[in-house]
């Protein structure tokens, strides 16, 4: 008889900077997470409508549809994930707006180590 194991947490990464999204995928997969990456807000919402994720790492500045619009429309998703907003640089207005729209954390990619994001994902 096999022991039932908990399926890995699923993380959706929405970031149009492919090297950054790839780094997040590599690190999270190494830590045992199941990851999917998309490169714009519209693809992100489409993925959330068809698939379920525990955590969304959401870049705020993306083509087609930005991260703020994704946050505004997350209410339409049946089981919305926990959202961590990712910003290129620190902008106090963006931080306030993203947290106000429901993001649980706001990370500045240019300031923090990858490990900090992974630690937050582990604690989510």
């Amino acid at each position, binding site marked *: 008889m096999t022991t039932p194991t908990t399926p890995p947490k699923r993380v959706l990464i929405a970031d149009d*900077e492919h*090297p*950054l999204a790839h*780094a*997040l995928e*590599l*690190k999270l997969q*190494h830590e045992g997470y199941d990851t999917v990456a998309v490169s714009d807000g519209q693809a992100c919402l489409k993925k959330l409508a068809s698939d379920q994720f525990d955590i969304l790492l959401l870049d705020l500045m993306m083509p087609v549809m930005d991260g703020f619009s994704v946050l505004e429309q997350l209410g339409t998703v049946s089981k919305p994930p926990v959202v961590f907003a990712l910003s*290129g*640089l*620190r902008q*106090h*207005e963006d931080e306030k707006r993203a947290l106000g729209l429901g993001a649980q954390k706001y990370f500045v*990619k*240019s*300031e923090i*180590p*990858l*490990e900090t994001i992974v630690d937050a994902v582990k604690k989510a």
Partner: protein
Amino acid sequence: MSTPPTPAKPEVEFMSLVAHQLSAPLAAVRWYAEMLHKGEMAKPLDATQAELLSEVQGAAARMDELVTDLLNAAHLDQNKITDDPVAVQLADVVATQLQPLSSQIAAHKLQLSVQAQPDLPTLTVQLSLIQMIVQNLLTNAIKYTPDGGSITVSIRPAAAADLTHLKHATPDQSAIVLAVTDTGHGIPAAAQSQLFTKFYRADNVRALGISGSGLGLYIAAAATAKLGGAVWFESQEHKGSSFFVVLPQNSPTAAKL
């Protein structure tokens, strides 16, 4: 000293654009270097590889500083710093800004002394601006003080002589002075008039190979001006420098609340 001149709009927009465009690839360099350094994705590095990688990480950290300085300078020039004023104790801001600098202070065997007079009133200011002022003055002192030197930070009520530096001083105005004194390389007399100019770096520190964006003091001065304060310095080459910032208890933005 006078308020830094307002830069031309295209220059500011260019700085902001450069900062944004550099930030993502730079974060990628740091994150991949971090993964290599931790040795999680591949075999652990040998000593030479680890040394080369730490050079990459050091260079990326210096570029990070430059990007942050470019963005802060652009935001100051564009009046894009809009966080609400809050009441803060200057000593608390200094303590917070010193935390991430403690390893550098220890690595360079610098003697740090912080002297804050008790019962000082709070300042009502935009936190991001006061952080920029304190962070840049501290970083400056650390960067330009040779190993084994000393840095003294003092916080005290403004005296009548300090208030003369303010543009719109009134005799009963309550203000606080932050002074950062170091035993560093000092500023050559010929360089002193240009010190707060954007991208300016004195020849003596350039010759020593000390890296810097030339924006730190510009940012400190511009942020001080936005808070209705003034900045000045006293310096002697080879002996050290003292930078002084006087800030009114309520910044002009706080007065509008």
